């Protein structure tokens, strides 16, 4: 992989370390992973911050994401254009939020975004249906899907608007301590 100084300058690495939950070494490893996704596209030299984005299809093929039912949503939520094209910085962002060190609030914010398929800032029934279908390989009958979604909304909806706002979601998350450890992808 060569000398690490040729990939990032010290200042860049400091910035990465200050702004994400990764150490210098992990940043370099992330770069290596990013580079290996598309060796001909991603330059080894990042000192002048090249403008390079990888499409969703490539990123989703990482072994860490490959089997994840929400892989497309994860990548889309972290891409600036909403289409799933990730620059290296966004790539780092993604794994920073999914890392062990990220606090619960931050994870919750992005988890909410991932589940919010239609980006309307609410988890409505449609969102939940999509989630459920991804989780169960679409093997539940429509009635069951309906029932489960209704039950979910009924349980988690505090303000009675029949959809889950972020505060509903966060409230639920605080009662599900496992979330902190399960919403985690080790790179």
């Amino acid at each position, binding site marked *: 992989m060569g000398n690490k100084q040729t990939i990032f300058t010290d200042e860049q690495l*400091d910035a990465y370390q200050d702004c994400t939950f990764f150490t210098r070494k992990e940043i370099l490893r992330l770069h290596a992973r990013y580079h290996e996704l598309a060796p001909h596209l991603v330059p080894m030299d990042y000192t002048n911050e090249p403008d390079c984005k990888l499409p969703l299809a490539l990123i989703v093929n990482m072994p860490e994401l490959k089997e994840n039912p929400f892989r497309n949503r994860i990548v*889309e939520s972290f891409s600036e254009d*909403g289409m799933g094209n990730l620059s290296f910085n966004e790539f780092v962002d993604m794994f920073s939020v999914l890392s062990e060190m990220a606090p619960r609030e931050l994870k919750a*914010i992005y988890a909410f975004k991932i589940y919010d398929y239609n980006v309307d800032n609410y988890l409505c029934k449609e969102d939940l249906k999509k989630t459920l279908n991804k989780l169960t390989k679409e093997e539940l009958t429509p009635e069951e899907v309906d029932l489960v979604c209704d039950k979910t909304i009924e349980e988690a909806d505090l303000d009675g608007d029949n959809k889950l706002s972020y505060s509903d979601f966060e409230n639920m998350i605080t*009662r599900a301590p496992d979330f902190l450890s*399960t919403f985690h992808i080790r790179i």
Partner: protein
Amino acid sequence: MTSYSHGGFHNPAYHDSETLEIDRRYSRKTDHTNPYAREEVAWRGSNNRTVAEHGSMIQTVSGNDSPYGGWQEENRRGRENIPMGLISTQPGRTPWQNDLNRSTSYSNIDSQYNPSPPGPPPSSITGKSTIRWRGNTMRRMSMFPNTDPAYAAFTENAIKNEMENEEQNLVKELVPLSTRERIQAIQELPMSFEEKKHIRSQVLAFKSSNQSRQCTCFTDCSENVSLFFRRCGYAIRSTKQTLGLWQGTMKEIGGKFGTSVLSYFLFLKWLLMFNIFSFLVNFSFITIPVLVFEPSPNTPANVTFRGLELLTGAGYFRYTVMYYGGYSNETLHGLVDYDMQLSYFFTIAVYMALCVFVLVISATNSFKNNYTPEASASNGAWQLLCSWDFRVTNERAVRQRKNNLRVQLKESLSENSYSEQLTLSVRLKHFGIYLGFWLLSIGLAAGCGASIFFLCRYEEQRTTDSVSWTLAQEAETLVVPFVVSLMNLVVPLFYSLFNKFEHYSSQRRKVYALVLRNVFLRLSILGVLCYHWMNVVSKKYSCWETIVGQSLYRLVIFDFMFLLLGSFFGEFLRNVIGTTLLPSLGVPDFDIARNVLELIYAQTLSWVGIYFSPLLPAIQILKFFILFYLKKVSLTRNCQPPQRTGRAAQMQTAFICLLFFPFFVGSLSIVGYTAWSLTPSTQCGPFKGLNNTFSVVAVWMEELEEIPGADWVIWIYQRVIRSEVFYFLITIIIIIITYMFWQISQGRKELIGILKQQIVNEGKDKSFLLDKLQNLQKPNRSNKRHKQMNTEKHSKRPEDHSSGGPSKSNAMFQALLARQQLEEEEERRSTDGVPVPSDISSSSALTLAMMARQRAEGQEEHFTRVSDQHFSQSSGFAHVTQVTQRSGGQLTDGYYGAPEDLDHPTSSVSSIMMQVMQARQRAEEEDRRQWAPAHPQNQAPSGSSALIQAMLARQQAQNEFDDGY
């Protein structure tokens, strides 16, 4: 003029009935400064005039001038405030617009349609009062998805200003923080890296500019030093990660078996680290000095290494530093004098204190993180949104997980009906079964304890206190540990069997019942053994601590062997049977509860043994190290992930508490009892010749009395450590503090209840307002249709309005509609007296009316200037309608907000008047134009229709007014 008025009603202050209640904190301030308040004054001013004219039907243009003037002035003033207005409104508006569009029609193509949220998190999250900057930035970010080009031109500058403001605020908040806090705060900002970097550089620049003003040299230096330390810190973190044991293995296990199984391995690793720490402490403070001064153990001549020692720990090992007996009570003279008595005592004491500390910290931490106030969120919601394990990367595991989840969901759907069907007799039967099995389990545990007791007595009668045992004698000592370990292996199997017959309502209860029974079993066995050691062994043997140490060594070794056997029989054979002989059994699950309990038991042995055999942690390290790989192999070869993805985190908490409370506290009390009350053996060990271990401190104090300057130590010893009053006071204080915290937590509980109620109430308010809105919209729509028909009839020129064609009257419609809305509101208010919603709607309707009117007016001006261009006119109108409609949409959006700042009960009346005036004026102008302009054919009908409408509207308004008052 046109652009001017654009500015006027795009001033978002008019749409300011914010939707996002959390955001309100920020918008409130701006609301007050926004034109609303002043506008009202202007409206009222004109109101008087209109009312004055109301009676007569004379149409005076001059009457209209003044509201216009006032209005425009307001615009001008309003524009000064625009940036402020934008702050609050932009973020709120756009998401709502998106919401309406998406959820109804565009839900599939939103990715193309929506240029929206790159990094920005949902704007409804904005503002957590605890982390204010987060709220700030998030709100700022949610401004970007501004989809509407009509706004873009106007708001560009404002957005820029706004962004800078927000950023500045954020930077200002970050600057005074310490470096560490600042980094943490930046790391936790929910933004993209680019933005974080920007903020960071700004903060740094700000800081350095601040500092450069102050004295330079020192701050420069300190800056460099802090940077150096930070880099050092990162380097340490980095190396820690590199040194971290089993990173890859952990990832693999997590990927294949998920978090719950991983938690077992994490626990194992934690215990391993803990033992390494214990070993280092004991080895460096107790063993190394002895080894340095007496490298070879003083074994009797006839004792040689025979091999069986590895199992029994007796024989040759008896005289080594492995056990208590291998240490001497001498003061070692070297570079410094090293008092073995003191070092032995204090090492053990400090080690135990550290254990308490570590365990309390981790237990409370775990409790804090994982404690859930109630388990009510147990099923649907949790299963759907929180249960997916993002860690799992194995394809088979993913498939299985999906299957499990599906089954669980189906079960939970059917369980709902099941739980209600339980009759009293069934419940009684269940209760009877519980009782029976509990009695049976406790009886079994007690029986095990009793049999161990008799076995120990039997063994004690057979052995002699000789220097060396024969091989057969040595082998006989293995009977007790063998039986104990066998019981620990077999009895839990019975317990699992019992568990199958019982009907527990939840998986968790089932697991806890099983764990509890196992804990009873192990505690009873350990209790009997300890009783035997303390009361029988301590009186019989000349070097009884070493004998106890040996027993513990044997227990540890046998426990390890049975762990290996357990995973062979429990997992490997079970797998073979499950896959070949009895396929119905299937592949075994990895039983986390049982395995964790085994670890806890193993650790307890090591704690009890720490006094008798200080190097027991070394054995423990080896044991855990091998166990890790064994379990990993056994897991990947034989097991499948647990069917039930229970709440691993809560189980983890339960286990740490279990580790702390019965097991560690038990072993601590045993060690304490030994040190305080039992007489150390007279023949061997560091404490020979003392009444009890603790008196070593008294001896030390006597020595200290001779040294001048150590008075305070003696004073502390006399007055604090030996005085009952001190402990009494400490106890009282702790009780008081506990009581206080308990009270505080009770208060918090109440507060939580109240806040929850408040959320529910807010929700009800919201739905109530929504209902109101929908009710409003319904009559509006029907009215619109009705009116259209009316107009068409009047104008005798059926026209397709929806085509957006030359409908000048459309703008009028808007005004009319708005007015009507107002009227209805007013009516409702006067009849059923619900002030809040009507207030909002009236003022928002007011806004709508204003916009419609102004738009129409602007168009008209435009039209009079270029009166011969009919096309531009029509397109202009199309635009007007469009914009008005949009604003109408926004109005509804705005509705969801709380009704602050909108209490203008009187304005609705006046606005009706205004509407009338406007309509009339417009009609008049139409009229005028009708005679003058270039396309009379086209203009005539719409002009007359406008006139008619104006008349109608006015009349209606009058009626309304009369009704209302």
